[in-house]
């Protein structure tokens, strides 16, 4: 008892709440710095100072480049990254598992299936592809939820069913691509890699509006999510309608990823890694929503900078996140298997 008391007084000094706030602010600052740097990179390089001047519209040509071309892509990386980070945080908290993410439970693969079906059937508009992806992702998420439902949804079962459904859809996708004509298959594959290259203001604005609405919903659902972390019995004894809250959270979590996927194609890893990185940075209880969103934004922005400027030719950002994500997933799985008895 006395040992714990000593420990307690030490804890008061380095208050966990303060550390959390500091970590969140640090990530936010890093995010702004990264954004300014990203806005300066390209065939027409600009210093951070020039970027700031261009943003305020004081420099005609630079302003056109920064505001017209680079800003929508940087903002898209931030907004979509934040959405993926928040979505991952919701799923990891619901499933009580660091593997819980919309990618792992089949959403992204289902969206890809939907997009391929649309592209193969001859539609050429990006709206059609987005619609197909949305439908494919939502149907997959719904099927996974139904298959995992047994008088309530338990985290691990959701993940396992998701992995199974993902495997099936992967082979469906391969089959569809093999049957398609070469150029159609290439178009579909390009979409499937996930890229921010085609996002301009006209694509960003409607997506951003949806994300703001979903973000507000996430904030309102944060408290129920914190209750669900205590287990269903305690949450219900605190007056939470657990199944209803869980369904609302799944819908919002899926919708956050759906909006991103429909705009860019599937971008994996961000939803998986951002919440865990944020949790380690903030040393928080459970998965922190706000910090996960900020970390997601930072991650996707950095990944997109790498995708555009590090390789000799620009590659889709989805490829960058896939490479980093694959490595991260291996580390995570090894850690999980060591922890398991």
């Amino acid at each position, binding site marked *: 008892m006395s040992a*714990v*008391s000593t*420990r*307690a*007084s030490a*804890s*008061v000094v380095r*208050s*966990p709440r303060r550390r959390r706030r500091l970590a969140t602010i640090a990530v936010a600052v890093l995010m702004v710095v990264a954004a300014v740097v990203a806005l300066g990179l390209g065939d027409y390089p600009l210093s951070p100072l020039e970027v700031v001047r261009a943003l305020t519209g004081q420099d005609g040509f630079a302003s056109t480049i920064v505001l017209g071309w680079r800003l929508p892509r940087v903002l898209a990386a931030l907004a979509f990254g934040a959405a993926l980070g928040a979505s991952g945080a919701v799923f990891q908290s619901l499933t009580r598992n660091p593997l819980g993410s919309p990618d792992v439970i089949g959403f992204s693969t289902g969206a890809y299936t939907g997009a391929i079906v649309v592209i193969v059937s001859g539609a050429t508009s990006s709206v059609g592809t987005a619609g197909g992806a949305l439908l494919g992702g939502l149907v997959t998420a719904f099927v996974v939820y139904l298959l995992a439902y047994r*008088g309530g949804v338990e985290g691990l079962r959701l993940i396992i069913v998701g992995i199974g459904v993902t495997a099936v859809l992967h082979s469906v996708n391969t089959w569809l691509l093999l049957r398609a004509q070469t150029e159609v298959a290439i178009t579909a594959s390009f979409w499937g890699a996930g890229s921010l290259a085609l996002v301009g203001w006209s694509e960003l604005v409607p997506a951003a509006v949806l994300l703001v609405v979903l973000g507000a919903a996430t904030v*309102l659902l944060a*408290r129920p999510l*914190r*209750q669900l*972390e*205590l*287990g269903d*019995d*305690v949450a*219900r*004894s*605190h*007056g*939470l*309608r657990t199944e209803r809250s869980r369904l609302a959270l799944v819908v919002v979590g899926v919708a956050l990823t759906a909006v991103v996927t429909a705009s860019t194609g599937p971008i994996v890893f961000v939803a998986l890694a951002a919440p865990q990185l944020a949790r380690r940075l903030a*040393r*928080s*209880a*459970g998965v922190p929503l706000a910090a996960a969103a900020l970390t997601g934004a930072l991650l996707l922005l950095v990944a997109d900078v790498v995708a555009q400027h590090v390789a000799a030719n620009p590659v889709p950002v989805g490829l960058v996140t896939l490479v980093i994500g694959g490595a991260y997933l291996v580390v995570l799985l090894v850690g999980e298997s060591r922890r398991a008895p």
Partner: protein
Amino acid sequence: MTDIHPTTPGEGGAPRLEARGAHLAYERRTVSESLDASVRDGSFTVIVGPNACGKSTLLRAFARLLTPRSGSVLLDGRDLARVPAKEAARTVGLLPQSSQAPEGITVGELVSRGRYPHQGLFRQWSEADRDAVATALAETDLTDLVDVPVDELSGGQRQRVWVATALAQQTSVLLLDEPTTFLDIAHQYDLLDLFARLHARGTTVVAVLHDLAQAARYATDLIVMRDGQVVVTGSPAEVLTAELVERVFDLPCVVVPDPVTGTPLVVPRRRGLV
């Protein structure tokens, strides 16, 4: 410290919780076809009975975790299934049999989450919330540990944190599902004394306990169950007889006065000594 609670027998006090012909069942298993039981206002009611007799199930029905298939469970005379969830949670608190804290959560944060039923969709953390948490921490002797992660506490301290979380809920009824199960004997009595203090201050306490000596010491009312039915209810002094214990638990025994409190003490006649 053993005689701080009044052991008044079961008279007066309107029922706070009541099961009426309640059919209690899980997905594949029926526990009670038709159960009647009630908890008096201001009582310290202890539910006892052999394993799988349905005592935890009754508590779950009182806690709104299980809705009866037919019949009803009433809270202050109202059908519990129709009472809004948060309103019920402001009246009845629960200490579940086992609970898991999110990794890394501090004592203060966990206890704060007990304020959920008092918070609205947009309502921020208030003065009343802070007071309730501070009081709950003080009552459970946890004020010094407020910033310590729950993972780092001992079993007894951890159980007190969950009690504090339920106390922060500020309910007039407190349900306890085998609250002492994983604790050593000294911590068991520490916790029971805490419940006795809460009871003395007017909280209606309902506990599922295994230890009959503890039940006899702390209960004002006993509900004795077997095979999903209530066998008998009443004060420990009236109810706990050798004949009843043998009938309900299939355990030949003698009942003697507890040398410390005078309450009934069940002594088994096994191990070839008699």
